[in-house]
């Protein structure tokens, strides 16, 4: 294999054909920034072999996306939920000590063997080793978890925090639901009227697909008894939910975006004249910040699209 006799190119991409292929993968995976993506697309346009590789990759991606995912059965969810059950102190302590020991020495076989055997036979063991109160508690806990822990958490926390938690729960529910949106459209002229028709308010819904944030659609979130519009954007593999709470008179203005986190998700909160915005995602912080910056810029550029209904 003699190296290709390419003159060095100006686009900053690798000369080696194997490495260049990795760039095609990275493009398909959404791992390239806009400049690199553009350069790769130009190379593809000039090189049918790269274009064919790209087509194959996109096809493979589709095929992999269609592989059925294992379902989380109710039985299994109950098995897992019971782990976090509030146990009586002695048992809890013993289990925790055990877990810590296992964590510390992952290669001790006997110890773990015992643990697995204890777990295997599900139902019968449960009845033997748990009394009915624990069974009842675990069932209650499962039901509680399944219905979302919003209520309990809202009362445990104060104002802004509980709102953030509620936003996080809404976002999480949307990730678990069959579809994260109630109205599927990348066109704000469809999303806005739909939200207006449902709840009488709608925020600006710019499509920022060219920036890497495609508008998927919208849905209605109910937070603290109030229905609120939520927009859903996609950034690579991540979904970003943007809840726009119509601004109350007494609400304090937060012109500078406020970085928060809740429920394992990252949040950004800011307020403009009309709405109090909460953006939430499992994307990385820089991506979320970038989204917020672009969204705010888009609204300022086209304020007409942002009037409250």
């Amino acid at each position, binding site marked *: 294999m003699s190296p290709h006799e390419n003159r060095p190119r100006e686009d900053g991409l690798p000369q080696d054909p*194997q490495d260049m*292929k*990795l760039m095609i*993968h*990275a493009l398909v*995976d959404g*791992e390239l920034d806009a400049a690199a993506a553009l350069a790769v697309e130009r190379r593809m346009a000039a090189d*049918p*072999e790269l274009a*064919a*590789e790209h087509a*194959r*990759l996109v*096809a*493979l991606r*589709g*095929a*992999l996306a*269609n*592989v*059925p*995912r*294992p379902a*989380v059965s109710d039985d*299994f*969810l109950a*098995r*897992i*939920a019971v*782990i*976090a*059950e*509030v*146990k009586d102190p002695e048992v*809890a302590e013993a*289990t*925790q*000590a055990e*877990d810590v020991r296992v964590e510390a020495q*992952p290669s001790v*076989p006997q110890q*773990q*063997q015992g*643990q*697995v055997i204890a*777990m*295997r036979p599900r139902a019968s063991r449960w009845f033997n080793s748990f009394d009915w109160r624990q069974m009842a508690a675990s069932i209650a806990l499962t039901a509680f*978890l399944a219905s979302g*822990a919003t209520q309990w958490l809202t009362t445990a926390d104060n104002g802004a925090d509980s709102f953030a938690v509620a936003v*996080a729960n809404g976002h*999480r529910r949307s*990730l678990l639901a069959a579809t994260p949106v109630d109205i599927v459209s990348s066109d704000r002229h469809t999303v806005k009227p739909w939200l207006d028709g449902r709840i009488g308010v709608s925020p600006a819904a710019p499509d920022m697909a060219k920036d890497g944030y495609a508008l998927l659609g919208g849905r209605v979130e109910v937070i603290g008894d109030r229905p609120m519009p939520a927009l859903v954007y996609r950034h*690579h*593999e991540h979904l970003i939910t943007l809840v726009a709470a119509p601004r109350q008179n007494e609400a304090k203005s937060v012109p500078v975006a406020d970085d928060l*986190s809740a*429920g*394992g*998700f990252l949040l950004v909160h800011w307020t403009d004249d009309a709405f109090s915005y909460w953006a939430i995602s*499992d994307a*990385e912080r820089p991506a979320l910040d970038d989204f917020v910056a672009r969204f705010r810029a888009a609204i300022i550029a086209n304020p007409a699209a942002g009037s409250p209904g």
Partner: protein
Amino acid sequence: MAGAPDGGTVLSEKMLAARFAEVVLPHLGDALSLARWLTGNQVDAEDVVQEACLKAHAGIAGFVGGNPRAWLLTIVRNASYTWMARNRPRSVIAVGDLADLDDVSPPPDNDADSPEAVLIAKANSAAVEAAIARLPQAFRETVVLRDINGLSYREIATMLGVPQGTVMSRLARARGLLMTELGGRHEPA
């Protein structure tokens, strides 16, 4: 002995339960997918994920933000390999010893025209699953973490403890094998 195992922060059990519900439970589907592909079947996957969740619960106080899915999947991956070493010692290949895998010649890309892409797109999911199952372990976990669990290159590199470039080349190799299999000799499964 009675000291708090969580190194400092003692959260109430209720808080821990709430955190567990927020960080772990939403990603059980992903956890099951990964464990299913690492162990080879669904029943073992449930046991592995249960074991992983016990560890996740014990370590939940140490979760400091970031991507909860990547955090849980790291634990699931470790639990999978521990489980494999215990239950199927013969099937585990030394994860560090990949030199031989790197010698596997890349798949030929003969025809630049794409009837192949059409075949790949049409492959039924049984054929796709069989092709994934036949991949060498290191390639399989990389492609599953990326294309099924949706982690980023960086998250995968952190999880596997390898450079991002290694993730990229394993991914390309894995996909190359899948594409050859699904696009080349496409037999009804």
